[in-house]
């Protein structure tokens, strides 16, 4: 049934390349004659590559632009500038049949399993709906069978095909959302906070399911979440976002063990560790203040208003995410350095 990616497709090759993606939402004023008075810089020059079979985690606090990034990738928003290349084709220039084909290859799992499923449709209709738009994905006669296969694949009872979403729990609904995303046999799945609405004991079940599916189907994930522990668990590489920009990107180990950007270091030290014996032993970095408004980000380095290392240069010159002397993974800080190990 769900055949793994064909052998010609090499694990590790770049499948999606995003280049300086920008999304500004205009702020308008006036009732009749609206004029633009500013812009919310939700995504402001984001570049990364997604490789076949890997999970790229995207972390950041609310308002950092991670969900807008997901919506851009799904073409639910059109970008202000920038490119994204999927299988060598420009995602944002494609239209008509080509766009439909590209979209088939990239699907999304949403955060809220309660509002992302239509309460008036049966589970079978929800999971089978993609076949209405892409009739060639499954011939009409075999759709029912394919939906049952998908239910089985995500660990739900295929007999429940005629039930409605309200008859399922939160975790089961998220499985329905995953089955719908898998219906067209995509290679990439964009997961936007897929487990943050779930209880702890259910969250682990869904994370394990996502990992199992990745192994079996050779999927690539863009995994967006605010929970750093979950992201570390599931990701091969991690991008840290702050105010619309990627401030640091690297392998799971580079980000979690050898972070050189002060924001990443502060973010990591703020995560509560479920171990009371460890609570006083870590050197905590406490950021003051809140994230500035993306409508009016600080000059130079976005993070300088909350950074304890900020110097004059940080207000003048924007640091780029390039390899740094302290560690060879890209970090957008003039003073990138490893954190001294807490003693």
């Amino acid at each position, binding site marked *: 049934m769900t055949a793994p990616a064909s052998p010609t497709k090499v694990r590790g090759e770049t499948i999606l390349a995003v280049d300086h993606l920008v999304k500004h939402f205009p702020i308008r004023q006036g009732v009749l004659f609206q004029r633009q008075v500013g812009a919310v810089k939700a995504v402001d020059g984001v570049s990364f590559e997604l490789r076949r079979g890997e999970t790229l985690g995207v972390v950041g606090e609310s308002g950092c632009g991670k969900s807008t990034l997901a919506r851009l990738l799904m073409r639910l928003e059109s970008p202000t500038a920038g490119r994204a290349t999927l299988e060598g084709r420009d995602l944002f220039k494609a239209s008509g049949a080509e766009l439909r084909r590209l979209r088939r290859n990239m699907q999304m799992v949403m955060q809220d399993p309660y509002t992302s499923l239509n309460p008036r449709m049966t589970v079978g209709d929800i999971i089978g709906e993609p076949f209405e738009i892409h009739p060639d994905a499954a011939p009409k006669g075999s759709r029912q069978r394919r939906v049952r296969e998908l239910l089985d694949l995500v660990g739900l009872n295929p007999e429940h095909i005629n039930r409605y979403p309200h008859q399922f729990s939160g975790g089961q609904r998220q499985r329905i959302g995953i089955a719908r995303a898998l219906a067209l046999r995509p290679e990439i799945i964009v997961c936007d906070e897929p487990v943050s609405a779930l209880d702890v*004991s259910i969250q682990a079940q869904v994370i394990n399911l996502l990992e199992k599916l990745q192994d079996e189907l050779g999927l690539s994930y863009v995994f967006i979440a605010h929970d750093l522990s979950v992201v570390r668990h599931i990701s091969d590489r991690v991008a840290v976002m702050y105010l619309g920009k990627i401030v640091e990107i690297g392998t799971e180990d580079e980000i979690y063990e050898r972070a050189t950007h002060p924001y990443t270091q502060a973010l990591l030290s703020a995560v509560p560790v*479920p171990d*009371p014996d460890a609570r006083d032993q870590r050197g905590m970095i406490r950021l003051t203040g809140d994230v500035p408004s993306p409508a009016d980000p600080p000059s130079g380095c976005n993070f300088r208003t909350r950074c304890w290392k900020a110097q004059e240069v940080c207000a003048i010159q924007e640091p780029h995410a390039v390899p740094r002397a302290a560690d060879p993974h890209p970090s957008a800080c003039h003073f990138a350095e490893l954190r001294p190990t807490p003693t």
Partner: protein
Amino acid sequence: MSQSAVRPTPASPTPEGGHLLDLRDLHIEFRTGEGVARVINGVSYHLDPGETLAVLGESGSGKSVTAQAIMGILDTPPAVIRSGQILFQGRDLLKLPEEQRRQVRGKEIAMIFQDALSALNPVFPVGWQIGETLRQREGMSKADARRRVVELMDLVRIPAAANRLGDYPHQFSGGMRQRVMIAMALAMNPKVLIADEPTTALDVTVQAQIMDLLADLRRDLQMAMILITHDLGVVAGVADRIAVMYAGRIVEHADVHSLYRAPAHPYTKGLLESIPRLDVRGQELATIRGLPPNLMRIPSGCPFHPRCPYAQQVCVDVVPHDLVLGDGRTSACHFAQEVRDDSAR
């Protein structure tokens, strides 16, 4: 920060060896059109002056309903308090007439909620809202109340407090709104602060700021705190003792160090194993199979038995009583010793 803002309450106003707050065998059910949901099934816990008790549980475990019963803000109907006592300084709150209950609510026991935006009134300035109780209940003049509001806002570290009295809730960030709520709760110098998921809606860096603030306030003001949360990480950072709830019961009760080191109830053990850890790398996450029970049809015997790897026939037949394990630890499991020994390994 102005220390005079709130007088430290004397450490032990508790009568003859009793607890500051003592819940005894509380039973609450919700009567709905579809049937009776048994939401709280015999909850007992206590709180002493100056300590922090964490009540941990997943959605539907009854942790918030218990807190609402203590505050006397449960909607009755549909909720019905079947039996039990809530003793505050020796007096049973459930027996007090509403007029006296009001004297306790806010003044002796205050509460902060998860969602500060919906708990604040959007059409009044925050200064006015924080001062409302002072004017209404302490009979303070407008000018006095205003001075005290500025003190309270300083206390919760809202920058430039005097200039922000006239701002409305939407002009504050999420973290600052939560501080406004805390200032409001502290206005009457409560002896007990109930914090119901105070940081769940906040980002991790802001969460850390708020948890630090709560810990400092509790120490400086000698308040006792009940922290209601689902987050095992947050609990580990601040709590003295933990009560773990499942299906309206407390299944395990222990001091925070021994609980994390060796949980003695299979549910607690499962929870601790199922969270991904920042500091520990593992392969597959352990899971708790199945789902939390429907409170209208709680399983017989031990309510956790359908999901429990330790379950035997006795668990289906007999409701386990709290097994005392020493050091004030209890676990409502027939195999508590075994579970704890397994965990300690």
